[in-house]
């Protein structure tokens, strides 16, 4: 176990050597005390790709110790921002060099179309790493005027320390990049637990990490079940901070474990049930494109999926007909083919999404398009649009995480806002309108961490992203992302005050 496995990409014939061990101290090693393995599956064919080592809580201990050692000796305050920047840029160069190969591996394990993986997932990831490489030598504190005769006061923005990072399966490489980049830029060391569903690209990227020249222990990668490795990280007494992206349910557990153990800092990017509002003045053709993207991109497996669509009554029939046409026009199939979307990632997700579709039907919503299972292999779900939905329905309240849209009607702006905000989530929101004042009013009123106006789903590495309400705590991306990995120390340096006694 822990030896690399050679995988062949059926569509291209490319052979990829994939490490299967746990990545600790720049080496791939077997588990210290467990024989568990994790099987990875190709969601387009339902066939097993390979198995990798499943890390145990003891392996997490070893990884944390390695990260701590690196933080105290070769990383943290022992390395200049300039050097961190240099290494990160090198990593980005290597990802660029290997983009095609990484894209094919991502598609094999996750199912998304290979050109999307290459141009968007990986393209954005490379830019994200370069973006944060640019911040590494620009971490500044403040000097604060107190009393010029006696004291200087200043803040230092220090790296928090050893960070546990737990990432999901919907954008494996992109989520990996969002996590490691700000942490490395600031000087933290990392124990990364990739999703047990999609660990392969994280392991392959660990090879590039070594090639880029990072010291051992700066990044450690431990594929493991969430309930095993993830839980161990959240509860670990020597982890200073945990960052988690995934379901709200698991996010709660992480935060509880953090509180119970050592009050480690917590940032969470959780679920969403994001509202997407179409006002009558909108450019309907464009709005339909964006609304389609909002629920169908990545086969709906997106935390910001615009899964509740609210259409103004005056344009309802016209718009929904347009949208249904667009949904039907999308080609969903094997990610190595010429398609816009692939299968959902696993049997578990497939069953889960279908159970929501069944619940929609049984709770009385009407199907506008989709809702029928495909025969044959592969976890394919065709775009499914429900109308005549009511706020109490499961398909309206709960995050489905698939290409399933609930569409409702509204008449006034206030009604739209009330409907939109009627959720415990607050991750994304979108609105389409040609009335500038309306755009401002509505974007101000929507309770979401990201509001798109006349757009949806498009993120930029320098613009912060995160949730309000139960969609999360903290922000990723932008300069804000650095704050999650920074610990402020205030220094009060007396050079002129003598203390009298008794005081």
């Amino acid at each position, binding site marked *: 176990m822990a030896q690399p496995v050679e995988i062949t990409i059926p569509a291209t014939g490319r052979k990829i050597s994939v490490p299967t061990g746990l990545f600790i101290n720049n080496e791939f090693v077997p588990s210290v005390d467990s024989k568990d393995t994790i099987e990875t599956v190709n969601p387009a064919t339902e066939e097993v790709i390979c198995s990798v080592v499943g890390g145990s809580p003891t392996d997490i201990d070893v990884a944390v110790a390695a990260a701590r050692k690196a933080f105290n000796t070769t990383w943290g305050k022992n390395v200049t921002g300039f050097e961190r920047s240099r290494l990160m840029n090198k990593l980005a160069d290597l990802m660029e060099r290997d983009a095609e190969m990484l894209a094919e591996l991502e598609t094999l394990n996750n199912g998304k179309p290979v050109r999307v993986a290459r141009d968007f997932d990986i393209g954005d990831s490379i830019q994200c790493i*370069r973006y944060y490489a640019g911040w590494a*030598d620009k971490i500044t504190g403040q000097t604060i005027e107190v009393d010029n005769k006696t004291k200087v006061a200043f803040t230092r923005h220090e790296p928090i320390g050893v960070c546990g990072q737990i990432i999901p399966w919907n954008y494996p490489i992109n989520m990996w990049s969002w996590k490691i980049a700000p942490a490395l830029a600031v000087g933290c060391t990392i124990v990364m637990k990739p999703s047990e569903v999609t660990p392969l690209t994280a392991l392959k990227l660990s090879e590039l990490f070594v090639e880029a020249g990072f010291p051992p222990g700066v990044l450690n990668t431990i594929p493991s079940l969430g309930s095993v490795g993830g839980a161990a990280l959240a509860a670990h007494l020597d982890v200073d901070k945990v960052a988690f992206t995934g379901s709200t349910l698991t996010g709660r557990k992480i935060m509880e474990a953090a509180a119970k153990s050592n009050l480690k800092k917590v940032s969470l990017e959780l679920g969403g049930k994001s509202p997407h509002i179409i006002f009558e003045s909108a450019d309907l053709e464009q709005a339909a494109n964006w609304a389609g993207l909002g629920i169908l991109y990545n086969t709906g497996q997106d935390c910001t999926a615009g899964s509740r669509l609210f259409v103004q009554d005056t344009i309802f029939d016209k718009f929904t007909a347009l949208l249904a046409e667009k949904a039907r026009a999308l080609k969903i199939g094997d990610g190595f083919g010429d398609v816009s979307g692939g299968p959902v990632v696993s049997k578990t997700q497939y069953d889960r999404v279908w159970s929501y579709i069944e619940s929609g039907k049984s709770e009385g919503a009407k199907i506008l398009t989709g809702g029928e299972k495909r025969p044959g292999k592969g976890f394919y779900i065709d775009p499914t649009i429900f109308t005549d939905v009511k706020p109490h329905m499961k398909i309206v309240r709960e995050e489905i995480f698939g290409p399933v849209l609930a569409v409702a009607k509204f008449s006034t702006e206030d009604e739209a806002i009330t409907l939109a905000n009627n959720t415990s989530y607050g991750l994304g929101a979108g609105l389409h309108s040609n009335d500038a004042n309306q755009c401002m009013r509505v974007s101000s009123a929507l309770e979401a961490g990201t509001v798109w106006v006349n757009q949806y789903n498009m993120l930029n590495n320098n613009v912060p992203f995160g949730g309000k309400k139960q969609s999360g705590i903290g922000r990723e991306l932008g300069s804000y992302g650095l704050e999650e990995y920074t610990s402020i120390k205030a220094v009060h340096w007396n*050079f002129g005050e003598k203390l009298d006694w008794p005081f």
Partner: protein
Amino acid sequence: MPSVFTYKFDTPVYKGTSSFNTGLFINGQFVDGSDGETIDVINPTNGKLVTKISAGTAKDVDTAVAAAQKAFDTTWGLHVAGAVRGKLLGRLADLMEERADELAALEALDNGKTFSWAKTSDVVASVGCIRYYSGWADKHSGKVIETSEDKLAYTRNEPIGVVGQIIPWNFPLMMLSWKLGPALATGCTIVLKPSEFTPLTALRMCELVQEAGFPAGVVNIVNGLGSAVGQAIAEHPHIEKVAFTGSTAVGRKIMEAAARTNLKKVTLELGGKSPNIIFDDADIEKAVSWAVHGIFWNHGQACCAGSRIFVQEGIYDEFLKRFTEKARSLKIGDPFEPGAYQGPQVSQIQYDRIMGYINSGVEQGATLHLGGERHGDEGFFIRPTIFTNTQPSMKIVQEEIFGPVGVVIKFSSSDPDDIIRQANDTIYGLAAAVFTQDINRALETAHKLHAGTVWINSANQLHPQIPFGGVKQSGIGRELGEYALANYSNVKAVHVNLGHTI
């Protein structure tokens, strides 16, 4: 058609060939000066001609400005995302790094600094500066400012547009990087005049700029005399900002010309007569080493040179003895000679000027404690020189010499404020250094010195992240760090009315 110059280096420390076009680099092409004139480039190690380069005129500046404006309006400015501007700057840094030795050799040939200093200090700093600013390109955000719910107010940092940049001969490549970095990161387009004494690395950089992928017209390099090209830039009605590094005398002219024409924004990095204060409790050995670096680095040709060395009476004798020994031990020679610390001064003009100051020191009654003479009989070499027993009114104490000439002044312990007064007694205010083990005294002194940079227990150490610039007649504005971005940005405030009626 301007010619391509090729130079073959065959030295103990570097062997290689450098080849580049000697024309004006305008709109992505190399062209002759509009009146066909050239400038001789002299090797200061032997006084001999290296090559001739095209000399620009005011007309050439017009052409360059037009190209820069067109690029700004179409292929640069905000038409290109910050991340893309950053990527091109990153690529430029990569290319410079690949040719590091060649650039260092050219710099040593042209300026006279040793290949070793050029390689380990100048080129490293230049690459680092470009990389640093490549990281800023997509991070110069404005603010959203809360006023009330009926208004959305925000600021944008917009690039100024076409900027003029005029750089000196003491750190040619590094000064080029300090100028290109923040201007390109913010989205400005550039018309830059290198020093007519040291144009070679700038010319070599033109091809690297092209290879990195910057669109034509974004960077224009126009060699020429200060009185022609520099003046034309300072007066140009379509250049909205000029950045100048050089002497205070010329800085004044630039600012006057800017005021007289279109009130273009002006930043200036000028001269200095920086004090280096060494208290009794300083670590003498370290203070000596830093003091040597402070005045003899780059042959004293540094704007921030610690040229007035104040030593407290308790350690004066011991300091002077060791400082003199160290200065005497500095190896002067051919820049390509292994182990050489100091090469020639950059030109005959500088040589004459420095010798003039040395003579004035002697004439005005200072003690010539070390050096004061030419080294060898070819090239512009001057031995490290130390004066003692000076008076504050002497020219060598008041005026910037810009050569390897240090003035060592004893100060008494009786009045702690007096040394501050003496240190601040200058029209300049670029830098200062303080040596003491007493951290309280170090901080208090640092805070009272009138200077843009104060070093505590070091001297002449720069980093791309830390701002640098002068107070008083040493300059206006700051380069390096995040601060430099402001030099190339216009802040626009946008007020969006959401409900206020009138």
